[in-house]
């Protein structure tokens, strides 16, 4: 027998083996393949829309009737001098949101886990998740009241003598990213905690008992039992969110921005909104092109993060 034939038959065996295994796993297939078809229809089906990023797309004319313009829309984005500011701002704000959001949620979850009184624990949980339900318009209004030149924060700073004249928190670019981060933490910390609290329910209580017998203090228990117990959730969410680094939201930024901070406040979404729907004629394709750009960068980041996690032998997403 030649080498090739050996390889071919081994290959054949592999494929055969694959199908034999698959046949045995028909129950798993019943449980998973319908949803696979579902996402092909609902999520991948509409992806023909990405083709319109290469068109001067007019909804009424549709994909077939609109004019093809090649890379013109991408050229518009990549040659516009504020687009790269928008990319930078998006990245910076979502990174801040990711770090602040994750740390604060875990911290709150750990603190809650240490509460013995069940009624108090539930009250804290319920109250801290309330702001999640406030609309951004209301939240932005409150941010105005707190951070404006005549706002609460300046009043406090001036009473304490920390500053002589009010600081224009909303009017200086250097504060803007951090403000968004702080507001998002405040709004979402309770909501973000839920997932970690749920993860903690799977921790084996005997581990705590064992730790106590070993003489571990509270902080050691947190360090050696609680945190490892939510590590896989943390890793999975982290990888997932790294893929979302091109998404910084836009509503809060849009509501709080002003001419003075535009160079720091405008995200990719705001840029796309300005030039696709803020104009006299809508330019759908700019929005699509920007969306495509975000998707591709997001997927690259995601796969990268996933690979790193795998190399470090940590929990992975895929």
């Amino acid at each position, binding site marked *: 027998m030649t080498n090739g034939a050996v390889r071919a038959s081994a290959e054949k065996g592999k494929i055969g083996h694959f199908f034999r295994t698959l046949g045995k796993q028909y129950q798993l297939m019943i449980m998973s393949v319908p949803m696979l078809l579902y996402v092909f229809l609902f999520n991948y089906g509409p992806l023909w829309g990405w083709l319109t990023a290469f068109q001067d797309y007019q909804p009424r004319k549709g994909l077939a009737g609109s004019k093809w313009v090649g890379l013109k829309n991408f050229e518009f984005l990549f040659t516009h001098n504020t687009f790269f500011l928008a990319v930078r701002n998006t990245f910076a704000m979502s990174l801040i949101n990711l770090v602040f959001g994750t740390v604060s949620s875990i911290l709150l979850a750990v603190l809650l886990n240490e509460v013995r009184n069940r009624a108090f624990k539930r009250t804290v949980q319920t109250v801290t998740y309330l702001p999640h339900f406030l609309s951004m318009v209301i939240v932005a209004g409150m941010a105005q009241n707190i951070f404006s030149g005549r706002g609460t924060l300046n009043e406090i700073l001036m009473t304490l003598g920390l500053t002589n004249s009010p600081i224009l928190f909303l009017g200086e670019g250097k504060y803007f990213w951090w403000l968004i981060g702080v507001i998002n933490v405040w709004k979402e910390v309770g909501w973000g905690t839920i997932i970690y609290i749920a993860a903690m329910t799977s921790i084996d209580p005997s581990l705590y008992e064992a730790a106590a017998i070993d003489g571990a203090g509270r902080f050691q228990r947190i360090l050696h039992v609680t945190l490892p117990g939510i590590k896989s959730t943390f890793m999975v969410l982290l990888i997932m969110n790294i893929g979302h680094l091109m998404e910084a939201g836009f509503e809060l930024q849009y509501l709080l921005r002003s*001419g*003075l*901070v535009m160079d720091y406040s405008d995200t990719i979404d705001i840029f796309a909104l300005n030039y696709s729907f803020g*104009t006299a*004629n809508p330019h759908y394709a700019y929005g699509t092109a920007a969306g495509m750009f975000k998707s591709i960068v997001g997927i690259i980041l995601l796969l990268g993060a996933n690979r790193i996690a795998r190399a470090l032998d940590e929990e992975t997403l895929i």
Partner: protein
Amino acid sequence: MKKFLATLLALAMILGLVPAVLADDAPELITITAFKGAAFDQPTDDNKIFKKIEEDFGIKFEWEFLAGNLDETLGLKMADDESLPDLFDGGNSAEKLENAGVLIDLLPYISEEGTPNLWKHLHGTNVKLDQLLSEDGELFIIPNFGVIYNQEIKRHNGPAFFIQKKVIAWNDYKVPKTLNEYFDLIERYLAENPKNEDGLDNIGFHILSKTWRRFCLINPVQHLMGRPNDGEVIVDINDPGWHTETFINQPYAKPYYAKLNEEFHKGVIIPDSFTMDEDTYKSDLAKGTVIGMFDQTWAFNDCTASLLNQGKYEDTYLALPLVYDPEYVDGKVIEEHYINGTVMNKDRGFGISINCKYPERLVKLFDALLSDEWQIILHWGFEGEDWYYDENGRMNMTKEQYDHRNDAQWKRANMAEPLYDGIPKKEGTMDNGNAWDPSVQDEIYYASSLTDYDKEFMAKCGVEAWEDFFNKPLECAPYGEAWQIDKGPIDEDYQTWCLLQEQWLPKVIMADPDKLDETWDEFIEVINPTSKIYTDFMQEEVLKLVEKALGSTAQ
């Protein structure tokens, strides 16, 4: 019986069982889907006006209103022919419906005999049909506002510099006429009254400068130069070539921003001006802490309402048509023209979509609703119920009747707002001298908007109406008002241009006085390239419009 038959017919139609049979006296009941590119309340099922329309014309409406982004929504509707509503109002983007070809040409359905009211409407005193036609001579949308019958009634409701009435009283009822006089008065008043009656800090001059409200920051210069609101350009109406230019980058714009810079450093303008949102701005106004601002009357109506409600009549605002002092414009004395003649609301209102099965019935409906009888119902309501003839034989409303018109709950059942807003209608006066629009009818306008404080205030100023502070309206220029021009072809540059102003003007105002000239020059350098594109475009468009308007009179 008739109703029963109509229902049966409608049912049969829905089921597709029988072809529509048309009886002469009972038009088949049809349901029209209608979209409005603005937010409205859903009328109730037994709304009295829609009920009468259903009885008289056999037409029912299924309404859908805007809740998201207008252009995005229109795009979705246009992407699928089947989802086109029969009656399609594109709100402030209606011309996009025309461009996309989803509306039908209405001209074939309009004739002197068939639709006499519409015919007359389109050949009225301030309407020239030609101005409404597309380049191929089609008529897609009949303007929903701005067609005047008989006498034009013009109230000031638009842009001006405003000042609290108490400040004018404090100044012995001497009213500032120029920019310097205005700020001088504010400074003097503020120096003497750093806090208002409630002990809150007074704000000398407030500028709302974000998003669509940036007009408060950008628009004043044209008015200071003696022009009505053309948006962002000044058109020289005395120039045979209709010279058009953006004003923000002209040398004559600088004195205004330099003045604001000076006032900023004097503390008359506070830094929060450039970061605040509309709620904050409105709360400052409603608290009676803002001495002056540039705005449009209707844009802060609710603040005035709040002040009246608190009994702070003296804190409500007087509109002032300020102009530049001669020193800023080579010694020229500028004549103010804040109020313009009525502009036809071209390309705004209902169109009929290519999806509509009953275009003729709808055009006939438009025509019938333009009859005097229906116009009174739509503008005023039903006699006896919603209005009455007073002892002078004039149409009038009691206070209660007028107040209803701001009560959302009442309006849902008793007014046909979504329809009213989009159909062609009569404005100006009826043949018997009553105003078509009740809110400008003298009796109602004065009874509803003039408090005793106001009457006394006017007497002391020596005027009889708020409009007396203004010059008579200019005759509307043949190009209309330049802000109406569709900026589609230069979209991206126009947007960049707008954003640059929003970004740079606050910087100019807040600049260190020594650096003011430098910052201004930097701004001019940044803005000039897009300004030039915009100017060239507008010049061309203005000339086109003028040619259309003047060309048609020549015929």
